[in-house]
């Protein structure tokens, strides 16, 4: 089935986007990402460790930019200015790469997004030529505003970053998806495979996750489970589920031709 995810004009076969943080080592990172089938991987931009050994492996050795689409993020930024500055550095770092994940946080305890700063940063970045995939709350009005600013994908949380609480407000997600003309991806909150399937069944275009895979007891196996869940959820969405009803007088087997006692 040809069912590609189109983001900023580029087609992807996988609807699962994964983070590259919290893994034990680069070997585990690579194995989990391979098992997930993800084509887009998020990376963080941080100060280089001065004085590190020359031969020390780097993330870029583990996940060559030729093989994956990098999605540099602004994790840890609490202001629009910091987020914009980080992504301009990312663009320089990655040779003019335009696709980015914008997230501006409002609170270090909950990691809840600050949508006011997010909107300010999105305006600047879109004007500056970036393709902005934006992390936000599950507020349908804010999601629409971010789309109107020109973000190429809107990524509401399902629950808080790293919480693994699953899809807490499917109704809001449904409204956001219904209103959007750009892809809506769930970013944050997925805890296990069923959460991913539920998000996809709601009609999400994709899911971005990190902790659900990296913090699983067996990250590589969970990555494989997530790949299947995203695919299963997507197919179920496209297939169109049967309506729910309290009971049905229509059994699956024929009512005629039953053997009888007489």
């Amino acid at each position, binding site marked *: 089935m040809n069912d590609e995810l189109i983001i900023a004009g580029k087609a992807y076969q996988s609807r699962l986007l994964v983070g590259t943080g919290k893994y034990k080592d680069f070997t585990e990172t690579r194995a989990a990402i391979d098992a997930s089938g993800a084509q887009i991987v998020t990376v963080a931009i941080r*100060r280089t460790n001065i004085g590190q050994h020359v031969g020390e492996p780097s*993330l870029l050795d583990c996940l060559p930019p030729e093989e994956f689409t990098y999605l540099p993020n602004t994790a840890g930024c609490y202001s629009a200015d910091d987020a914009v500055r980080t992504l301009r550095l990312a663009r320089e770092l990655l040779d003019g790469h335009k696709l980015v994940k914008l997230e501006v946080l409002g609170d270090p305890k909950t990691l809840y997004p600050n949508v006011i700063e997010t909107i300010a940063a999105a305006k600047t970045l879109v004007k500056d030529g970036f393709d902005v995939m934006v992390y936000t709350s599950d507020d349908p009005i804010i999601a629409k505003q971010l789309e109107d600013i020109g973000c190429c994908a809107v990524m509401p949380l399902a629950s808080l970053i790293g919480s693994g609480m699953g899809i807490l407000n499917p109704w809001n997600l449904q409204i956001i998806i219904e209103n959007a003309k750009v892809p809506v991806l769930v970013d944050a909150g997925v805890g296990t495979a069923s959460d991913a399937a539920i998000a996809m069944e709601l009609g999400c275009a994709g899911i971005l996750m990190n902790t659900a895979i990296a913090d699983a007891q067996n990250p590589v196996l969970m990555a494989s489970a997530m790949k299947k869940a995203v695919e299963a959820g997507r197919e179920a969405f496209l297939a169109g589920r049967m309506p729910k009803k309290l009971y049905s007088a229509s059994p699956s087997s024929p009512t005629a031709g039953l053997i009888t006692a007489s």
Partner: protein
Amino acid sequence: MHIFINGNLRQLASENVTISALVVTLNLTGKRLAIEKNGEIVPRSQFDMVTLHDGDKLEIVGAVGGG
């Protein structure tokens, strides 16, 4: 002269050091990185041309694992 690299004060032996030369001194040759000098990005193509001055503040960043 003294410059700041990623928030840390660092003494350089000579004046008028280029960013290229600094990258070599820091053992960062061949590493993929981006550099900001006093808040302005220095494109990689200009590493040879931009020289450092006393009190300059550099940010040197790379990509790391993140979600």
